[in-house]
């Protein structure tokens, strides 16, 4: 029975990706028999290359991904070097998981509410400081260089990398490495950089690459924050793929392939950067330089971290206020009054979206948990790692650009008349939910003391009883936490819902993105609030349920 789980997981995970890639690749070479195209050719590519502003789109995608990744990694390194092991750092750790559960688009929308020319910051500064009584005609969000896009991405990716780094620090015994370096007379930050970081980086490498790939090919955040004339490549591909002019789909296919090439190029660049830094770093480590005054880098780390954190929090707050605002004219810092009328007005549409979002998230998360436990049990029983955890198969859907295989998946689903079916949509969600659930659960699952199992068996309990009565209850805390992660991932999915849902299953995320183009701030605020509230509620439940179940069990409190 257990033997079936690893192959099942691989098929469910890799199947849609490979099939989707094929479904994208063939139309790119003008092969799509359904539309009467059978001649393999390069026509789609020449048309793609003739698109106006393609070069700008490509540059925008690449620069967004690389700048986002470099700055996020730098910020995380600075923060850890400056503050790791302090009490302030521990306090910040507690804020990370809930901050991470907020979907990307929600954070992006919040930033738009905050920093746009008519946003909350400008309102608070006008007219007494700026003299504006009308919002200025500035391009702050959707600026031509994609700066606001990068800002929005870093606000979300830096916390993610920070969490990954913290997990790696625990394994690499970072705290003691730091102490040893300090006993040799190294200043704290330099000591951390020289003695701890080189051991931590290999473990966060795959997450860093996932951040890079995400930044190069992001669509949902880009639809809110990126420039539109022209937009980054991935956004244009999605628009063409969903255009009523079917001929544009061939260009979209070629564009999706180009998107893959961009990610590959980005990864290649990162690889060279890594090698350069390593070569230079290895020489630097052995110079014996122990560092000097560190107050300025410390200050930079704190200010940058605090700015991002506050921007996210106040952005979310701005949306919350808008969702219950009556009249709110421009320079006023607060609305004229508060009302629940906005919520009542949108109640029926909201109920639908909440239901679709919930059913998808709950089902895919539950299934991912069962699948993960099955695979991990198989690994525990045989003592072998499966292909899933060995070769980084889990990272395939996270590193490959979503458009590259979702477009093909849509083509295949349409051919098999499965597009717009709930099960197809749930499957595509699963492709992204399962890796996160598995990764979130695996460490705790593997760290479980096998002797409890032996004790249970020797007491005469069957393996199934040991699993259900001993192992799973003891692991309730990490299982619930992994479930909350999976739930948040599903809630945040935009492209899978767009491509496989055929418009039949609007979720909070697709609705929020669609509404953001319209400029009705109250309705955007409502959807964004719910989009944030659902994952937060899941996280609260994941914390509270085990705590309540084991409130009289002190031995269950230390296990993370």
């Amino acid at each position, binding site marked *: 029975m257990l033997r079936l789980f690893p192959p099942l997981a691989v098929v469910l995970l890799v199947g849609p990706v490979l099939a989707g890639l094929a479904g994208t690749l063939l139309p790119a070479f003008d092969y799509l028999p359904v539309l009467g195209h059978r001649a393999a050719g390069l026509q789609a590519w020449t048309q793609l290359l003739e698109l106006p502003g393609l070069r700008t789109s490509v540059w925008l995608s690449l620069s967004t991904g690389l700048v986002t990744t470099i700055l996020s990694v730098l910020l995380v390194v600075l923060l850890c070097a400056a503050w790791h092991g302090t009490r302030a750092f521990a306090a910040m750790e507690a804020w990370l998981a809930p901050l991470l559960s907020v979907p990307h688009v929600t954070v992006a929308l919040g930033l738009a509410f905050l920093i746009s020319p008519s946003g909350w910051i400008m309102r608070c500064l006008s007219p007494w400081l700026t003299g504006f009584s009308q919002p200025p005609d500035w391009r702050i969000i959707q600026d031509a260089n994609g700066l606001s896009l990068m800002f929005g991405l870093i606000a979300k990716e830096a916390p993610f990398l920070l969490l990954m780094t913290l997990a790696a620090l625990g394994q690499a015994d970072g705290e003691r490495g730091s102490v040893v370096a300090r006993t040799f007379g190294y200043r704290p930050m330099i000591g951390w950089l020289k003695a701890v970081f080189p051991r931590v980086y290999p473990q966060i490498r795959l997450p860093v690459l996932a951040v890079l790939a995400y930044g190069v090919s992001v669509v949902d955040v880009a639809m809110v924050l990126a420039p539109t004339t022209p937009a980054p490549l991935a956004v244009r591909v999605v628009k063409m793929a969903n255009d009523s002019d079917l001929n544009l789909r061939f260009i979209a296919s070629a564009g999706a392939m180009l998107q893959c090439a961009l990610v590959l190029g980005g990864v290649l660049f990162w690889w060279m950067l890594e090698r350069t830094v390593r070569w230079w770093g290895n020489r630097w480590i052995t110079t014996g330089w122990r560092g000097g005054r560190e107050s300025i880098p410390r200050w930079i780390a704190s200010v940058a971290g605090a700015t991002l954190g506050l921007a996210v929090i106040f952005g979310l707050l701005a949306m919350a206020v808008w969702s219950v605002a009556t009249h709110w004219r421009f320079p006023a810092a607060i609305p004229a009054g508060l009302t629940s009328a906005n919520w009542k007005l949108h109640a029926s549409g909201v109920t639908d979206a909440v239901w679709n979002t919930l059913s998808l998230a709950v089902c895919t998360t539950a299934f991912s948990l069962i699948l993960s436990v099955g695979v991990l049990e198989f690994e525990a029983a045989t003592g072998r790692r499966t292909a899933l955890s060995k070769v980084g198969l889990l990272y395939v859907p996270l590193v490959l650009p979503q458009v590259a295989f979702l477009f093909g998946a849509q083509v295949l689903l349409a051919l098999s008349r499965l597009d717009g079916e709930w099960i197809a949509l749930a499957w595509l969600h699963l492709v992204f939910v399962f890796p996160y659930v598995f990764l979130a659960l695996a460490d705790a699952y593997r760290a479980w003391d096998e002797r409890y199992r*032996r004790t249970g*068996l020797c007491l005469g309990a069957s393996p199934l009883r040991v699993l259900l009565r001993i192992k799973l209850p003891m692991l309730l805390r990490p299982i619930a936490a992994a479930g909350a992660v999976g739930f948040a991932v599903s809630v945040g999915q935009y492209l899978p819902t767009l491509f496989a849902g055929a418009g039949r299953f609007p979720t909070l995320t697709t609705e929020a993105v669609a509404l953001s183009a319209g400029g009705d701030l109250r309705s955007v605020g409502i959807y964004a609030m719910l989009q944030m509230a659902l994952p937060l509620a899941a996280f609260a439940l994941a914390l509270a349920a085990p705590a309540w179940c084991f409130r009289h069990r002190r*031995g269950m409190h230390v296990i993370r």
Partner: protein
Amino acid sequence: MNPAALELQQVTIELGARTLIAGLSLIVEPGQVVTLMGESGVGKSSLLAWMCGTMPEAFRASGRVLHGATDLSLLPPEDRRLGILFQDDLLFPHLSVGQNLAFALPAALRSRAERRTKVEGALDEAGLSGYADRDPATLSGGQRARVAVMRVLLSEPRALLLDEPFSKLDHATRQRFRQFVFDHLREARLPTLLVTHDPEDALAAAGMTLELPSVGSPQVH
């Protein structure tokens, strides 16, 4: 369970090219303790794991474990009924003391009242009357160790395997606990295999002692 002897026949355990245990045979009579001594790494714990049927796949083993005429090596772990005690008490942290004990009671005993009585009786015997609803984490090390023993005994094992169960206790507790274990296994007429590297344990067991040699290991220091 009827008292019968525990018997090992020609047990060999190998890890890769290393032979950890070569052709070990022995008989443990009911109520007796046989002590296996040896340095760490000679395969004592692997032997116990193999007897329980929970040995990792990397090891290879041959030979038989018999309880009376029953060949245990053919049974799945949960049907072998070899009670095992480790260094750590391994009380299930999510269950109360009473639930830990009830987990071990055979399911054939159906009546709730009788199960409760058995659990309470076991606690009385361990000097822990009224502890059924306690959280195991609130007990002292010695108390937890006694609960672990009562838990094994309630599962009605055919024999007892002790994997250095005294080594983590402080000196005073250790002596009292050792006496507690030996008294109970004699009373229950359980054949017992004790694995240890502490000569004092072997002395207290007052039975046959076997020294496990570091055989076939190419990298002996």
